[in-house]
């Protein structure tokens, strides 16, 4: 009887223990797909890319460890590196502020309690849902120097438009314009930010006799600054990764005037098959984007205003 009792207790307690161990594993089962995917498709490639950036690594043929050579070649002996970086910086210098200003302007207009604002919102957002290839195709036809609609409309108001995509000085401007067309996401984020600003602030300002411009700089901009920061970072990252438009619209030309850094990385890898060198290129881009992001973040303490900060001061 006694032995029977102990026999019946022991297995069930083992079962309990097993059940407990099993239940400890359950959460990992749920997140396992992401962990596996992260290791196989992100971390592994990332480490591999870092390692081969120190190699001469043609896609077929002998691989050779060459230390920092890829990095030193890039900086000292490859004019295309500096050229493509300069093209990208020029593009970003125009595109980033214009994109922010345009998206903010559209969001403010949409926020003016006008009838049909959701229809206008649709018009401003719809270019953002089509493919980058489609966008490039459409603008290719709009920008056509002779038969494009843009130069035709410009001619109606007495301006002779340039031969956009075949001009070394205008092709990059054309890229900026085409990219601005896809600002919809930023606009929606700004719009959400604007809706979060308490209306009574404006009413109070109105009573005090403050003008619209004063209200914009003293209420809208400070209260929207966290959103501006977010959008600024997104736009900078986007500007440095610009590739589709260059590949489809201009192929980097004419005379490499739209040869973006991302295109330089892409061609080194998939046109010249210098996998080690292009990995080094890609890491430099990663570092540049990271540095810019940190810089913007660091500077943000001087111009970004967080509501709870003020609450703490009180």
């Amino acid at each position, binding site marked *: 009887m006694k032995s029977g009792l102990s026999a019946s207790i022991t297995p069930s307690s083992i079962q309990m223990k097993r059940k407990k161990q099993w239940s*400890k594993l359950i959460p990992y089962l*749920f997140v396992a*797909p*992401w962990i*596996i*995917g992260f290791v*196989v*498709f*992100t971390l592994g*490639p*990332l480490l*591999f*890319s870092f390692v081969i950036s120190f190699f001469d690594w043609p896609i077929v043929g002998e691989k050779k460890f060459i230390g920092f050579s890829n990095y030193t070649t890039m900086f000292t002996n490859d004019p295309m590196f500096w050229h493509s970086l300069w093209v990208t910086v020029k593009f970003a210098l125009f595109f980033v502020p214009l994109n922010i200003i345009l998206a903010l302007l559209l969001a403010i*207009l*949409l926020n*003016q309690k*006008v009838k049909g*604002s959701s229809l*206008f919102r*649709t*018009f401003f*957002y*719809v*270019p953002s*849902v089509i*493919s*980058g*290839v*489609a966008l490039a*195709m459409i*603008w290719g*036809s*709009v920008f056509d120097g*002779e*038969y*494009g609609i843009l130069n*035709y409309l410009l*001619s109606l108001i007495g301006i002779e438009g340039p031969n956009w995509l075949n001009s070394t000085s205008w092709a990059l401007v054309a890229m900026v314009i085409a990219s601005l*067309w896809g600002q919809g*996401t930023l606009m*929606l*984020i700004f*719009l*959400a*930010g604007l809706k979060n600003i308490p209306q009574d602030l404006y009413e109070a300002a109105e009573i005090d006799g403050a003008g619209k411009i004063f209200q914009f700089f003293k209420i809208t901009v400070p209260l929207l600054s966290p*959103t501006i920061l977010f*959008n600024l970072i997104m736009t900078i*990252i986007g500007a*440095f*990764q610009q*590739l589709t438009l260059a*590949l*489809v619209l201009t192929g980097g030309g004419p005379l490499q005037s739209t040869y973006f850094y991302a295109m330089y990385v892409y061609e080194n890898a998939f046109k010249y098959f210098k*996998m080690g060198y292009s*990995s080094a290129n*890609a*890491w430099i*881009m990663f570092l540049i*984007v990271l540095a810019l*992001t940190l810089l913007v973040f660091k500077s943000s303490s001087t111009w970004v205003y967080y509501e709870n900060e003020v609450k703490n001061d009180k």
Partner: protein
Amino acid sequence: MKGKKRLQKSFVYGLLIALSLLFLLPFFWMVMTSLKGPEELAQYPPKLFPSEWHFENFAKAWNSQPFNVFLVNSLIVTALTTIGQIISSTLVAYGFARFKFKGRDVLFIILLATMMIPWDVTMIPQYMEFNLFGWINTLKALIIPSWFGSAFYIFLLRQFIMSIPKELDEAARIDGANVFQIYYKIYLPLVWPVIVLIAVFNILGSWNDYLGPLIFLNDQSKYTLTLGLAQFKGVHDVNTNGIMAVTFLISIVPLVLFFLAQKKIVEGVQTTGLK
């Protein structure tokens, strides 16, 4: 005072209408160009409307390349990546939102950090890796990675699940349901709105993707629509009406989806910006 208000209102309207016209102009030009005859493409000054409407341009352009094959490939990739993302991302998000386990917070920070890594850094080693797996020049290279969850979707889902009161699963547990049943029977129906949002985002992203197909696919028989269109331009650089016709046709899916799910998309984009 009232006159000033009215003036302001009409100024806003004027600006909105002018900007709308500018934003719609490229679409207008795409449709009009796609309907023009060959002689009108090279006519100066260009005509806004075609004198004859060449609706046959669409079929002619579509059939001049194996666009039907590209369409099938795009449909396969879009459908399978979307199903994969929904299944994997909901599982992972549920795990992060509803369990306490060692390393959870560190893992979640890593997950968020992966959203910052530019694809340019991983595309080169990924290409070599997929080459090793034998996935290059197959649709697998585009599909399989999406069965392991995407950081952005997981993040959206987790935020939503965290807002659901925990009492629900306690009640179900007392009734004898296990965690998988709770996930399947209670949470999946509740997170349905976010699943729809993810599906919309993923269909748009996958359908519109160009760089993935460009890097991983070589044979024309494997091309997706965006890749087919880009290649079509390379072959027929002068045939602008054909290019615009195909551009219009492949944009129908995202445009229709946008008009059907507009409210969802707008809300979805806005929540990402506010987090």
